[in-house]
């Protein structure tokens, strides 16, 4: 009798329409809410949360996404442990987030072992990271993607000598290598290379060194946030540009949300980047409007925010396409071929071969638009693949 009842019950449950069976996709999100990148981590997180909030209603009926947020405190060891816990204890189906590349490097091998896909949605450095595991896809950009064009561009201006000054961690190393390769390949000569400590450095002595070395162009990388403003102020205090030294930098030197703190100091500076809040695209205008609604009129998103937004978009698209039921390999196939012709940053697509992103890289100049500083896009390098992987194909 009992058996029969059970069978009947099971049959009844199985025949229920799908929506009544709640399907929850657990996604582990690791970010650095503390430590020297906490400001950019916050910008990225806001982008992620905004997409989640705006699009939660678009999920198929009965399907939910649960975000489990963890703080790696800017420490790779902690990040690795958190990823282990998320995989083994919380049984997450996907991992995402990660702003600090060393954390991504520490977590990547776990994703191969446990077969849990990782969508890197804030970190951009460590050009080889997707090669560490077939379960890693990166939706941000690579430092090579933004810095290599800057090296070419600097050489095209007729500048012969260059000096690099970068933050001494993996992102700075990538940026330095990319710029140097492009600049020297185009016939330029490097006359100096400095690295400053990652946490709260005083930039003044370094800027003095550059000024005294008198290069045609100084290539500068700092990890965004208040360090960007500190660097711009140090350059002004010492009169680097007045001494006839040109500046070339990736977008990290002029994050859109820091521009209001810089006064008029960065006017005319040229950077290369994947996103500017001043980008003239309908998708960007919609994104900006949603951002201002959520975070206030004064708040400004930057490239990290858009990376977070796009990373969440990719996960939502997977969940929508599969109604929340997918294996790790199905997810990776989906991610590797994912594209969006209409991201706030322009058209983007994941390269199925490298699992890095293909996107426009913009050359931008700081100008005054409606009385406020903006990174105005003045040239576009369309649908650029990661140059490092083009130069270094897998053996």
């Amino acid at each position, binding site marked *: 009798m009992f058996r029969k009842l059970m069978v009947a019950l099971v049959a009844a449950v199985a025949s229920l329409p799908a929506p009544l069976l709640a399907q929850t996709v657990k996604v582990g999100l690791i970010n650095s809410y503390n430590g020297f990148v906490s400001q950019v981590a916050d910008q990225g997180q806001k982008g992620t949360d905004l997409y989640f909030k705006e699009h939660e209603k678009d999920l198929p009926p009965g399907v939910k996404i649960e975000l489990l947020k963890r703080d790696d405190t800017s420490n790779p060891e902690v990040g690795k442990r958190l990823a282990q816990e998320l995989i083994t204890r919380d049984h997450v189906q996907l991992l995402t987030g990660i702003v600090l590349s060393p954390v991504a490097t520490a977590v990547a091998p776990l994703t191969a072992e446990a077969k849990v896909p990782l969508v890197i949605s804030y970190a951009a450095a460590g050009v080889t990271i997707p090669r560490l595991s077939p379960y890693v896809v990166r939706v941000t950009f690579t430092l090579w993607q933004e810095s290599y064009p800057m090296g070419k561009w600097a050489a095209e201006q007729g500048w012969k000598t260059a000096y690099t000054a970068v933050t001494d961690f993996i992102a700075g190393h990538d940026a330095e290598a990319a710029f140097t390769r492009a600049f020297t390949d185009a016939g330029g000569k490097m006359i100096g290379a400095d690295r400053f400590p990652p946490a709260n450095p005083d930039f*003044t002595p370094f800027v*003095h060194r550059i000024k005294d070395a008198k290069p045609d162009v100084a290539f500068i990388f700092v990890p965004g946030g208040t360090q960007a403003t500190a660097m711009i102020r140090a350059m*002004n205090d010492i009169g680097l540009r007045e001494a006839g030294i040109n500046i070339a930098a990736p977008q990290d030197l002029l994050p859109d949300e820091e521009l209001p703190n810089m006064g008029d100091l960065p006017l005319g500076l040229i950077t290369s980047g994947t996103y500017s809040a001043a980008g003239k695209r309908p998708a960007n205008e919609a994104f900006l409007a949603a951002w201002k609604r959520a975070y206030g009129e004064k708040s400004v998103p930057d490239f990290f925010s858009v990376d977070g937004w796009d990373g969440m978009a990719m996960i939502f698209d997977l969940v929508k396409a599969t109604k929340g039921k997918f294996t790790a390999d199905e997810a990776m196939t989906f991610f590797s071929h994912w594209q969006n012709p209409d991201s706030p940053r322009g058209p983007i697509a994941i390269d199925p071969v490298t699992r890095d992103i293909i996107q426009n890289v913009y050359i931008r100049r700081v100008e005054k638009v409606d009385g406020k500083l903006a990174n105005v896009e003045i040239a576009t390098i369309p649908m650029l693949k990661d140059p490092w992987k083009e130069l270094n194909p897998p053996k």
Partner: protein
Amino acid sequence: MGDILSAAVNIAFNGLAYAMVLYLISVGLSVTMGLMGFVNLAHGVFAMAGGYVVTSLMKDQGLPFPWALVGATLTVAAASIPVERLLYRRFYGGDELDQVLLTIGLVFMSVAGATFIWGPLQQPLQPPAWLTGPVDLGFQRFPAYRSFLILCGAALVTALWLSVERTRFGARVRAAVDNLRMAQSVGIDTSRLFMATFALGSGLAGLGGALGADLLAVNPGYALQNLIYFLIVVAVGGLGSIRGPFFAALLIGIADTASKYLAPEFGAFFIYALTMAVLLWRPSGLFGRA
């Protein structure tokens, strides 16, 4: 030749600016250690508080920079009095391990407290327009803010020396440092003296933290990140001295700037080497009493 000269001038200038900040912050620590025999590892917390107060007063209250500086100094000095009365005085003359445990605990509380109130991000100092950009002195251009820092520091150092060497309060402090029991027996109220000195030292640290918010970034980890430098200044300068920490701060400030400028790949190596050399040569510091 011109290049070498310009490099030397730059190192001296930036080293001096850094030294002023280090001195203002550390002198209070040196005096509390020398006078009260109290190992106050939490001294940097007062400097951090100064930095937070000055940035908050300017950003949230829209106070002009000079008034924000005054506000930060007074706030920190006033806030340090209850800390001294309620916590520190119980440990005077006590076990050094107890003092270290108490104050390092306070440091950790400050990290958590600052994160709770101001968040984990660095609070940038936005100097007023008249202090940004370079000033041209004819032969070379100097950053305006750091020039201001050096002038301020020089004025404060002079005032401090005069008050310790020439005033009655200074004479009492010197007497108490030299021989506490004798000072007590000639009728100096050392308990009140301790309180006043402590508040003065903390206020100076607050001012140093506020003035130096541009050099030593104001963030929750401040007291821990910079502790080593404050301790080095005190150890190299010698405990209980007003003069010692000044020369120590100069030495450390200039050596640190020079090593960043000349050999950045070595990091803080030269500072530690220098500290070890000085302490091997004079174990109680440049101006300390053996």
